[in-house]
């Protein structure tokens, strides 16, 4: 990976910058010693580590604004951070940049059952939003597996998904409003407490922008009534193809299940050894399907799933008969990553998305690659929406294995793009997939995106070095290249 060029003048001015930050946040919320900064040196993509210039923990919108105004004036870079669970290096610090932890913004500001929304500080964890409203029968739908730890601010930055996104949408589909501080220090409000229309959809743009456009200081999310009932089905298949056809078949017949996950043989084996959730060990692929709604809706949907799955030759179908059983069935899927993690000293989690119909082709190619690279791969898969999580097993202590795992991963992502898919379904580009962006986009495509970055951040100070493989100066990107009027070819088109 190419690293960002280091600005030595910033390092030289570190003492002055520390003093300025101290004046804004005080001594207590400023971290400058290497030992105390150590926990911030990486996010969950731990292969990359870097101590920041310093860590600041603002606790008000005013402080965030002051820090950003200072950064803009003094040309200092800033990296926002939530809980640091990003799997793409989105929150990786810069040696010459301030790391701004949003951990202090950890309060739920408003629970509004009348408008079905919750307003929370960006440092509030994903799960605590649901916990705050579940007594009254509501929940916040996007449920990344990291939901105990990851923050809603991080979710907005990454447009995170989860198991239930198939039916209920990703973060971006469940956000109603945002408050954000710009580098100018201006505080803007996007969206509202309910559905908004009119004007450019900057809220949609900011969601998923990986902390590069502004610092989010408040998030308003939509809460949903919890379904009255839910059941889970475990369906085993003799082949991955049959499981894939069943997924498509269910949706073709008009049913969008609450969740529809797939695990391959290796992932199932690892999981069963870890938690014993009753997954069929003889199956090549297992589908974990959740059906929710009223009793009649579930009854109707269960019959349909059974019919489709049997039609494609399912080898076993088990339906949960109690809430305990349902949760136990999920326990397997929820533990899949740590379970697979026990098979080898390290694993590398990939996140491409493919058109569902390409699943057999991609899995076959992946097993070939697995043999070529000499590294095992287990597959856990948000089957309903084509989002693959191949887990590549390796041992970082064996010389060359990390590099091999990374190349293997890259090859998988390139394959995803080749079959009509994308580099990342929910984990973000960050630094991890930055240099692969040109697999999907032309230079022009990337310039169009970078100009948007320039509109918010003309000096490239907010989380620079992420997402874009080449950094352009905004002035250079902003230039308009127009041919002179007589030089321009008159469009040779039918006209009337």
């Amino acid at each position, binding site marked *: 990976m190419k690293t960002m060029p280091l600005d030595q003048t910033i390092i030289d001015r570190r003492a002055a910058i520390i003093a300025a930050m101290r004046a804004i946040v005080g001594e207590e919320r400023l971290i400058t010693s290497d030992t105390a900064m150590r926990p911030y040196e990486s996010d969950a993509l731990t292969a990359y580590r870097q101590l920041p210039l310093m860590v600041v923990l603002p606790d008000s919108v005013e402080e965030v604004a002051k820090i950003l105004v200072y950064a803009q004036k003094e040309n200092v870079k800033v990296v926002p951070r939530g809980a640091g669970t990003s799997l793409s290096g989105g929150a990786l610090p810069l040696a010459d940049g301030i790391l701004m932890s949003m951990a202090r913004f950890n309060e739920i500001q408003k629970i509004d059952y009348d408008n079905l929304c919750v307003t929370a500080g960006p440092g509030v964890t994903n799960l605590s939003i649901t916990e705050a409203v579940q007594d009254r029968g509501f929940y916040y739908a996007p449920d990344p597996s990291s939901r105990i730890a990851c923050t809603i601010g991080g979710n907005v930055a990454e447009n995170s998904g989860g198991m239930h996104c198939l039916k209920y949408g990703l973060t971006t589909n469940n956000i109603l409003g945002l408050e954000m501080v710009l580098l100018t220090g201006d505080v803007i409000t996007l969206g509202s407490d309910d559905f908004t229309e009119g004007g450019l959809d900057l809220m949609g743009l900011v969601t998923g922008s990986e902390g590069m456009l502004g610092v989010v200081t408040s998030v308003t999310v939509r809460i949903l009534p919890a379904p009255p009932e839910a059941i889970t089905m475990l369906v085993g298949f003799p082949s991955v193809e049959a499981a894939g056809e069943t997924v498509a078949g269910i949706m073709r017949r008009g049913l969008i299940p609450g969740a529809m996950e797939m695990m391959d043989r290796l992932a199932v084996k690892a999981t069963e050894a870890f938690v014993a959730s009753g997954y069929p060990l003889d199956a090549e692929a297992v589908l974990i399907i959740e059906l929710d709604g009223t009793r009649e809706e579930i009854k109707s949907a269960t019959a349909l799933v059974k019919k489709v799955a049997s039609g494609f030759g399912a080898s076993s179908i088990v339906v949960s008969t109690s809430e305990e059983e349902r949760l136990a069935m999920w326990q397997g899927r929820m533990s899949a990553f740590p379970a697979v993690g026990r098979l080898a000293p390290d694993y590398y989690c990939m996140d491409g998305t493919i058109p569902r119909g390409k699943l057999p082709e991609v899995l076959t190619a992946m097993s070939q690659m697995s043999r070529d690279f000499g590294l095992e791969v287990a597959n856990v898969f948000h089957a309903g*929406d084509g989002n693959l999580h191949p887990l590549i097993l390796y041992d970082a202590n064996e010389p060359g294995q990390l590099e091999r795992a990374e190349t293997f991963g890259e090859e998988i992502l390139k394959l995803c793009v080749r079959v009509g898919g*994308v580099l990342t379904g929910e984990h973000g580009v960050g630094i991890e997939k930055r240099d692969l962006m040109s697999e999907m986009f032309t230079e022009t495509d990337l310039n169009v995106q970078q100009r948007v970055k320039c509109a918010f951040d003309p000096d490239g100070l907010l989380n620079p070095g992420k*997402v874009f493989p080449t950094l352009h100066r905004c002035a250079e990107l902003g230039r308009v290249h127009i041919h002179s009027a007589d030089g321009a070819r008159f469009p040779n088109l039918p006209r009337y």
Partner: protein
Amino acid sequence: MPMEEKSFHPRSEEEVEEVVKWVLATKTPLEILGSGTKRGIGHQVEAGARLHMERLTGIIACEPGELVLSAWAGTPMEEIEAALAAEGQHLAFEPPDYSQVLGSQDCGTDGGTHGGTFGGAIAAGLSGPRRLIAGGARDHVLGLTGVTGRGETFKIGGRVVKNVTGYDLSKLLTGSFGTLAAMTRVTVKVLPRPEAIRTLEVSGLAREAGLDLLRRAAASPFSVTGAAFVDERAAGSSGCFLRLEGRADEIDVRLNTMQAPLSVEGAAIGSKASGDLWQGVRDLPAWSAMDIIWRINLPRARAAEVASRVDAEVGGDMFFDWAGARLWLALKGEGTANHEAIRKIAEAAGGKAMLFKAPGDLKSETPVFHPEPDALATLTARVRDAFDPQRILNPGRMGER
């Protein structure tokens, strides 16, 4: 207009790029048109040239198993809807057909299709009643290609539902009314069309009680996919309409069990009649004779309060969708100079008001879109600079700077 007006009818993406390069070089403002059905929305564009998209037509890929559809921007909506219907699918955001309520617009297209074009639907970013549960147009666009106001052909997004590769510019382009780029191809997420529809009609409720019922129904776990209320004044008698969609073997039970917890008793309306009813909610054909129509977006729990203030200060007929979060207000000739009052009322409740339909002279002196606070307006202008620094595409359509 000083210049002779030119019309372009490109048949390929390359030709669209050529047109934009030419208007840039000659500094000729360009109006982009599908079939013109939504031309009445937004401000009138003063252009020296027109780009007609209707020859850039056809479905590129309809993949029912993948739940996606890609088509050229000029494809008639009828064609898209028919192709999806043949597969038992639909666009879940219920793109409205406002041609009747807005009246016909002369835009020199050949023939012109009633339901507009695919590109037009996305550029206008309009959504129907199902936004309540299934999201709006913005939530269904997966990717697109287009030509920016700098004359560059670009692509964003992809053809899969789950994608966070790069910025989500699809959302920015959806609802930008062709002011950032001329869209050439769009890919959207499609969903299964429900097998059965039922509507629970509860009549005779006073406005406050009706709006309260909408909110309670939307907060109930019965998956209500439409919640609309029409005022007595607008329809002769008031009516509260709750829509359920699902499978034939479960929907009637759901309709029945829903009523006790909501403490209402209503009349059930079957699939066919429900289809017509919700099309009426979506398209507002009943208001084609109205001269002025406002669309107010607001937090649903403030709807009753906003409506009372509108009664007291402005008057007019009202109709509520999205469980109250979208208020339609129609004025007939009366109260033309009250846009400031309406905007104040909306803002006080945390909402926004758009002048959806109005005679040309009123629109030329009133901002159609709700004015933005300074810092946001400045930022929006900078985002526009990124795409169209010369403001050459549909200039002024959104009242932009």
